[in-house]
């Protein structure tokens, strides 16, 4: 089956190290949810164990797919817009014209920072745009941000 893809796009991948924050995030969430189901065991019914098992299995499957998912994140600076691709099962491609960017955030969570990475977040006037490039090496992120601000400045458009 041919995948939906933008023709002749040169995707820049995010750092492979970004797998770790994702993985840790999923494992911690899975652990908390599994722990929350644990008190049900006191009921002594078989299905209470089944719920916990399902939570654990889902967490493991999601975690196992994380490297692929991280590899699937890609962005590209085209001449007039930023193209971002995300997701394997749920594919999402967004094109944001530089002139539309209202502000650019650099976020660094604890794990992301420990790995020397940054998350870049773009905000336009449309809430639905919500574009984030996660796991960019910190230096690159600063450079990318400055470059994008410069591009946005040169192509400034109204609302």
């Amino acid at each position, binding site marked *: 089956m041919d995948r939906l893809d933008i023709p002749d796009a040169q995707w820049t991948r995010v750092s492979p190290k970004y797998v770790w924050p994702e993985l840790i995030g999923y494992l911690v969430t899975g652990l908390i949810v599994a722990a929350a189901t644990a008190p049900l065991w006191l009921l002594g019914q078989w299905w209470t164990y089944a719920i916990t098992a399902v939570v654990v299995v889902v967490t493991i499957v999601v975690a196992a797919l994380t490297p692929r998912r991280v590899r699937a994140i890609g962005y590209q600076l085209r001449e007039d817009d930023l193209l971002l691709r995300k997701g394997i099962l749920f594919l999402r491609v*967004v094109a944001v014209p530089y002139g539309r960017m209202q502000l650019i955030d650099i976020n660094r969570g604890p794990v992301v920072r420990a790995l020397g990475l940054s998350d870049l977040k773009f905000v336009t006037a*449309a809430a639905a745009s919500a574009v984030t490039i996660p796991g960019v090496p910190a230096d690159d992120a600063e450079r990318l941000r400055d470059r994008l601000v410069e591009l946005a400045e040169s*192509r400034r458009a109204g609302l």
Partner: protein
Amino acid sequence: MSDSRTEADGGGARPAPPEVAALTDGEWHRLHPATPLLKGGIALVAVLVILFNNAREYVVELFVPGGRRGDEGDPFGYVVEQGWLGWLLLAAFAVIAVFVGGAWLSWTMNTFRVGDDVVEVRSGIVFRTNRRARLDRIQGINIQRPLLARVFGAAKLEVNQAGQDANVNLAYLRSASADDLRREILRRAGGAQQQHAPVAAEGATADGTAGTTAASALDGPPTPGRPDARAPHRPGFGGLVEQRANEFLAPELDPDEAPPQSVVELSPGRLIGSTVLSGYTLFLVAVVVAIAISVITTGEWFLLFVLLPAVLGSGGFYVNRITKSLRYTIAGTRDGVRIGYGLFSTSNETLPPGRIHSVKVSQPLLWRPFGWWDVKINRASRSSTKGAAGQENTTILPVGDEEDVRRVLELVLPELVGVAAVGVAAEEARAGSTAPAVAPETVASETAPTPVPDAAAHAPVPGAAVHASTPHDSATDAAAPPAVRDAVEATTEHTLSLVEGGLRSSGTDGGFTVSPRRAAVLRWFSWRRNGFRSAPGALLLRKGAIWRQLVIVPLPRVQSVGLVQGPLRRRLRLATVHLHTVQGPIVAEIGALDQDDALGFFTTASREAVVAARADRTHRWSEETP
């Protein structure tokens, strides 16, 4: 700049009214003196009435001794028996004095000024606020006249800016000067270099018969002019009352400002019909049926007594909706589209060009036999006020037939109307039909040297057409040679075909690319209709077989474009395209497209959006293009 404005008013027309010249001189000004009363005074009066109501029996007893029943739990009685009445009155007076003093102080501290680039408001006694709004970022200016304010001849002017709680409120201004102030702010915001020529003449020349008859029908006096403030000022109280009465009865559309006739006539019959045929009625009918069934089957009547008052109360809902939408008007001015409505409390808003982020024409199921539609828009600002029919003020046409929809679309999307004909013509020519299709293009190119502002709109370049055309089709109509007029008429006809194509058609009629047959799994009834079309200057999404709708997104307003495909659609080789615009009632997305079509649409939309945004000059809409 401000000096020249007061004197030079183009061609010996009346000078700018002195009070407006004064308001826009860049100095700080106060609001209408009745402001404290209009803002909070009514609450104070209400409190006094409640207090008096409690004490009424005692007041009556003063004159009719022995008429009072002895009731123990009454706080007022307790106060009287303790002999604290004097203190109570003193406290009441103190509170009132504080209120009045505070209101007066807040009025003196609340000042505004209108500069060349900003409008600025200062307010607050303890916590001072200073809000400054850039004129070129104005999303719309709304003038509201609540019933009480109309009695005082006051109006509330709201300068809408993009964002949550970002509006500049000037409440209240003198009713007559509010209109002039809005015009002046819009003139500066538009970036026009010189004063606009007065429109009274333009309106008269535009289309002689229709214009004057409509104007005189509205005004009463045969000469179309301002009936209120400009009327010869009679001194004294009688003159004042007369002036108020004139203002109260004056047409909502300032005849000086716009060609006074609204492009859409909303008859009360249609308004009532459309309101009655709303989804709320279905709900109401369901409730009534449920009550009837429960009464019949159980023989218990209590449900009737519980729910019937609620059902009867909804009559108020209908009345409210209808009175709010009465006297609906929509007209094009040089500074954008002007929409007014309201019978008792009126509201009147001007939306400058390029402030409409998407448009949706939709048809509730019950309206279908009548061929009625409504038109909604997405806009960047959030107004504090409710719009027509008490809805969010994103509804710009509460109800109308196809002809009305076409006229409204002509106003709000002049760029689309200008170029759509060329697009349709080109397509028809490609399809093989010859004679009528080529007409507008050839005529337009023949008459191109004629200085018609619309000529730019006929150019098949998508970017250039975005800003140049003005909504004054009627004005150019009369002034231009017959050939151009024919061209404009032909354009109008083709636009009609475009609108029809979007509203009622299905399949590839009207140049739409539709979902493939396999999408019928996801779009049971509408897969033949579910489609998109890229017109110069805008993108059209046609959706829904039962609840029909047409979404139009102007290209320069597209913030970003998204392409989405989930696992189910992957199997079906389908995909969804999102056109992201500012938040509002419209979500511009089209699902269940063939994935290659979707990819193509995504690519062209994202490319054309960039081109259109670059060519867009609407933030200074009156400025000459460099």
